[in-house]
């Protein structure tokens, strides 16, 4: 089983601040995904990165995949209360005849108004 470590585990910031969440592993992934989960709901995909060094932007969110495809970061600019949620990274490994996603334990973000 590939291990994905996310940091920080908890983050509480004021509206308007910037933040970065990290996802690290010793394993190489064929792709890495970021999800956001709100209370009482399932995770919802934000982005998938597949190329080492790739940077993707989604409005105020910037996602980067490490050159070696072992780590990733999520940067949020000018955070808003609507960004509050559990952010999960998940690494995909093409394994045998089926795909498996390994999830990190998540970063719980709270943005205070």
């Amino acid at each position, binding site marked *: 089983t590939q291990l994905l470590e996310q940091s920080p585990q908890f983050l509480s910031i004021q509206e308007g601040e910037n933040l970065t969440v990290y996802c690290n592993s010793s394993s190489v992934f064929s792709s890495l995904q970021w999800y956001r989960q709100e209370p009482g709901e399932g*995770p919802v995909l934000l982005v998938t990165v597949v190329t080492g060094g790739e940077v993707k932007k989604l409005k105020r969110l910037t996602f980067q995949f490490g050159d070696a495809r072992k780590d990733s970061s999520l940067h949020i600019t000018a955070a808003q209360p609507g960004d509050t949620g559990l952010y999960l990274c998940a690494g995909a490994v093409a394994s045998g005849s089926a795909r498996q996603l390994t999830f990190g334990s998540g970063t719980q973000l709270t943005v205070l108004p």
Partner: protein
Amino acid sequence: DAGITQSPRHKVTETGTPVTLRCHQTENHRYMYWYRQDPGHGLRLIHYSYGVKDTDKGEVSDGYSVSRSKTEDFLLTLESATSSQTSVYFCAISLTLNTEAFFGQGTRLTVV
């Protein structure tokens, strides 16, 4: 939203009883997954399916079995529920390798 329905959404059951959770999809996705989510552990794969009658174990499969008799339905059974199986269970689907997973809304199971 992807058409994934989990039932029931909430269940309380007694230790030692069998429990079956259902996942129904309307997307005709090939792959279906059962995860459990616990504080500090993130999402952990229990079992997955890559086609009708084709299933395999995930990292935390002990005490669980699954069945997929139709493309749209994936059942998770706890043969004899234990308190350690108290958790939130999520079903997910994906179309092919290297595509995103769509999740259901979860089932909160409490074993007393």
